[in-house]
């Protein structure tokens, strides 16, 4: 199973990539922990999490093909 992870805005200054694929991840909390291991400064950032284009507030199970996005505060307009 694979999950697509998208990075936006100032998050990309940390990751240097705008997307990555993550293998075997039970839920979003686990995914975030893995990402923080890979990008330690992520732990200091504020961001919203979207699962398949819907904002989520709590830990959510992941299945193959899901897309998770890490989105810092919006600044459109």
């Amino acid at each position, binding site marked *: 199973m694979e999950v697509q992870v998208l990075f*936006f*805005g100032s998050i990309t200054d940390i990751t240097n990539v705008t997307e990555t694929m993550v293998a075997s991840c039970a839920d979003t909390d686990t995914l975030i922990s893995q990402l923080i291991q890979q990008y330690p400064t992520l732990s200091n950032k504020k961001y919203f999490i979207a699962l398949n284009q819907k904002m989520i507030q709590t830990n959510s199970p992941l299945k193959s093909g899901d897309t998770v996005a890490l989105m810092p505060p*919006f*600044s*459109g307009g």
Partner: protein
Amino acid sequence: MSSKQAKSIFFSGPIPAQKIADDIQKHATKTNIGAHSIFLGQVRADMMHDKAVTAIEYTAYEDMVNEQMQTIRAAFFEKYALTCMHIYHSLGTVAVGEICLFVFTSSAHRRDAIDACNEMVETIKKALPIWGKEIFADSSTVWKKNNESW
């Protein structure tokens, strides 16, 4: 109804004044319209540490925005008696003095167009995953912050 159909709000680069004129002109045949309300966002030469912004580079989670906008549009047409509503937000680089946001609402009576336009501008700034990166003359950059967000 065609005016309520979902479509992308994104516009590549600055929004030309001519597009605004053309869009206004298209509404001359809709004779049930009595009021248009338009909001335009223009890139400002803000100063930060003695350096002036020369442009903003916009990126977005495009698919998510366009999906959100279907729900938001439906809610606005439910809440306000609108004839039509058109929204364009720039992606990519928009220089100081250029237009990056164009919100255009029309209705029979003015309150619907004005209130909807106003609420849509707030919604775009607060709820849509769009980001601006301010670019300075020396090529340094700072991620734009909207006061309203968080």
